């Protein structure tokens, strides 16, 4: 196999990694917000429920959670996971017969939403109450104070920890191979056993590195954009 052929072969796998990355970020980041608000709720049962949920999700290895979402439908509800589920968005992505990506996406989204929620909570709680009160005495509503005064300060504070999580996320996508989802490392393994080629396994690192490099530049720009004020 030529270098180009290997690259294209691995790229097929990396597309899956990117899909997991994108879906987790697009669904997990917003989902983290209600979880964060529940964890800060004054209504005690909701607060503790949310805290226990976050504890469980963060306390169990992500790989185990993938297994749970992969096997639970069959074991508990007797719904077999079918490789032949062809969702429209998967087809648009050029991926077919890959129903087992669903439990992976669910596990990643739930897992990362919990991590994000803790970052949001830390960010929101780190804003001094004086900022809220300064808004209230001017006659602003609670939601105006949150949206126009607190939010941007929170965003500034959560950008660095969010950047960390986002960079970890792309590398975590490799865990999907525990249920034989052919992400990039799985694909490289295939080459090793079928073609006796070991170097592609190490070559996969370059894909991650390039992508993480891009992320670093983008996230650095966001951070820089918020550099004009101190909070």
């Amino acid at each position, binding site marked *: 196999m030529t270098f180009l052929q290997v690259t294209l072969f691995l790229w097929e796998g990396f597309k899956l990694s990117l899909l997991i990355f994108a879906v987790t970020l697009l669904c997990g980041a917003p989902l983290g917000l209600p979880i964060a608000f529940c964890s800060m709720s004054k209504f005690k049962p909701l607060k503790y429920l949310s805290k226990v949920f976050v504890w469980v999700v963060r306390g169990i290895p992500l790989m185990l959670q993938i297994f749970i979402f992969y096997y639970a439908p069959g074991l508990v509800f007797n719904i077999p996971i079918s490789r032949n589920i062809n969702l429209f968005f998967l087809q648009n992505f050029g991926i077919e017969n890959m129903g087992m990506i669903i439990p992976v996406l669910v596990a990643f989204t739930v897992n990362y939403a919990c991590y994000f929620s803790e970052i949001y909570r830390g960010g929101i709680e780190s804003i001094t109450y004086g900022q809220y009160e*300064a808004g209230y*005495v001017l006659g*602003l509503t609670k939601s105006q104070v949150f949206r126009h005064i607190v939010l941007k300060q929170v965003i500034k504070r959560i950008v660095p920890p969010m950047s960390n999580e986002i960079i970890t996320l792309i590398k975590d996508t490799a865990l999907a191979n525990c249920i034989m989802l052919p992400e990039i490392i799985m694909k490289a393994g295939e080459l090793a056993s079928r073609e006796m080629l070991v170097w592609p396994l190490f070559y996969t690192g370059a894909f991650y590195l390039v992508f993480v490099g891009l992320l670093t530049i983008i996230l650095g720009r966001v951070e820089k954009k918020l550099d004009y004020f101190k909070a």
Partner: protein
Amino acid sequence: MANLYINNIYKKFGKTEVLKGISFTLNEGEVVSIIGSSGSGKTTLLRCINFLETPDYGTISIDDNVLFNGENHSKLTDAQIRENRLHFGLVFQSFNLFPQYSVLQNVTLAPKLLKKGTNEEIEQKAKQLIEQVGLTDKMNSYPCQLSGGQQQRVAIARALAMNPDILCFDEPTSALDPELTGEVLKVIKDLKESGRTMIVVTHEMEFAKNVSDKIIFMADGVIEEIGTPKDIFENPVSEKTKHFLQNSLERI
């Protein structure tokens, strides 16, 4: 007209009674300074007046308009509380400027959100207020680029932008380096001359003596003594007042 009537305010936190029946009147155009030792309840009183705390008992009125009546125990709605807060402005010890906004934006934010006029009107008024506190050249600076004294002057302009009937200050110079207190006190003095009604909690005795029409000395949650600066500083009646003034003189 905007005369403030504070009547028999009580407030406790848990079991500690912090305010135990505070009553006083503030007429339009007057400045009252509140002095008293740490923990006597001065901040709590200002916070009650600005509806950041709800008193347990008593009334707060402006002229015939009863803003709060602890007796009928009907809880104020959020909208009523916001309405009430508009009568007052509060300048905090720690400024609490909004760090992500420029000086001008800090001053215009609330009037714009609450639609107190067209954007041009609001900006024009804000620029005039910023000039009044002597910061025209800092209009587009951010709070982190200003000294403490400058930040506090912006906070004063910000409070004035909502055009409150009564402006309250909670130790406006306590967080400042000594050489910066003068510029803030001067702004407050100018406001007094332009006829602003103000309540100033302060440890600056000389300042209190010079700008106030009335001095309130608080001790342990009650008004121990109230009178003109001359009464309080030259002929204090209460032993506690004498003791407090003696101590604050010694400190200097």
